[in-house]
């Protein structure tokens, strides 16, 4: 009986560890998706790839959707892990972190409505991309 409960305990602990560790992996996967979207936008900004309105909309939609699920991936206690460069400031200043995410989503949403051609793309997208550096400066440790 004792043996069973011990092994149950072990399984439960392992399972809870796995759950506790997943937000880090999830948010990193999400950031990777954002990175892919950014790569497409930056490539067009620099003229390395041709302007493509559909690709722009797809990238901005990725930002929008990811912003919706982003904050939930930073639960209390997920500040520590082998491979996170999330800054402790996220948890000490959750309100500021949420506000930065909201601004990012609002800028992406506004850009989706504003961009109709290459000229409006080049005028609008740099403002959206400023969110990346601003948020990383405050809430990510350098790596």
């Amino acid at each position, binding site marked *: 009986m004792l043996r069973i409960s011990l092994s149950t305990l072990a399984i439960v602990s392992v399972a809870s560890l796995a759950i506790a560790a997943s937000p880090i992996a999830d948010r990193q996967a999400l950031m990777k998706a954002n990175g892919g979207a950014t790569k497409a936008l930056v490539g067009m900004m620099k003229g390395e790839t041709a302007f493509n309105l559909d690709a722009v909309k797809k990238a901005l939609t990725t930002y929008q959707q990811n912003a919706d699920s982003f904050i939930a991936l930073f639960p209390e206690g997920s500040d520590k892990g082998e491979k996170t460069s999330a800054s402790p400031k996220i948890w000490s200043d959750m309100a500021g972190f949420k506000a930065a995410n909201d601004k990012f989503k609002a800028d992406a949403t506004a850009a989706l409505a504003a961009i109709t051609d290459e000229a409006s793309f080049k005028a609008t997208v740099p403002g959206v991309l400023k969110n990346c*550096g601003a948020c*990383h400066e405050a*809430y990510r440790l350098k790596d």
Partner: protein
Amino acid sequence: MTRIVSLVCAVVLLGATAFYALTTPEAYTALRGDHAHQPTRARDLENGQTLFHAGGCASCHAATDDESRTHLSGGKPLVTPFGTFYPPNISPDPDDGLGGWTEAQFIRAMREGTAPDGRPYYPAFPYTSYRGMTADDAADIFAYLKTLPALKGRAAEHQLAFPFSLRRGVALWKLAFLSNTVIAKDPKQSEAWNRGHRLVEGVGHCGECHTPRTIAASLDRSRAFAGAPALEGKGFAPNLTPHETGLQSWSSDEIASLLKDGFTPDADSVGGSMADVVRNTSTLTDADRLAMATYLKSLPPIPSVKPKSVTP
């Protein structure tokens, strides 16, 4: 017994006298030589502005609420393992800033780390790298600073742990570790390389974060630019050498591009204090950013060594 006491007293007195003598600003000038303190040409305000940005002056000295980054009444405190540094007012205010300074005093501050009153500066002010610039370059920065708004306000005193709180001791550290030679031109290398050399090693002071430090907190030149644990907290300033753990796979254009818009080739946006560095380097010319990249690509490749405790 009396003899032993007098002997101990004599040794202590001698030691104190030697410490006092070695930590005077004159000792540094005498032992390290007073090189390159005389400007050789007329002031160039445009060069001063460029070097002001390349040197990241605003990153520490601009008021935190100042979007223009030209209100230099002092910025946010710099928290380090040695204690907390409060960046001073370097606006041209005659009382609180450097409005009352002479050009020679400014050049000495930048190149020797000595304040007008003779006290040594803590190397949180990166004169350890700035010393590589010429007197002309330093004088141009001074001339540019004088064109910015004069503002009131004095920074708080630095809050440092013992023994770092003994400011005079910094003078000994300077004698031991601070070279004061100007970065020399290498005629075998291209103009771009030489420009990059001056920007990266001198005014840009990249090594202050990206080169690891010895136990005495001096830069470990044998591992120049191989990456180092962040001084102001967790994190790691990456390896900039062309090693596989550094920038080997990056082209010069990609490095220059990061300095312009903050994006890595994978479209990741740099974080931590590098985001602020990019705010400075984004104002430089494409040619200057490419020059910095050219120099970095020419460095000997050195593998990164990340301490276990450092977040990857």
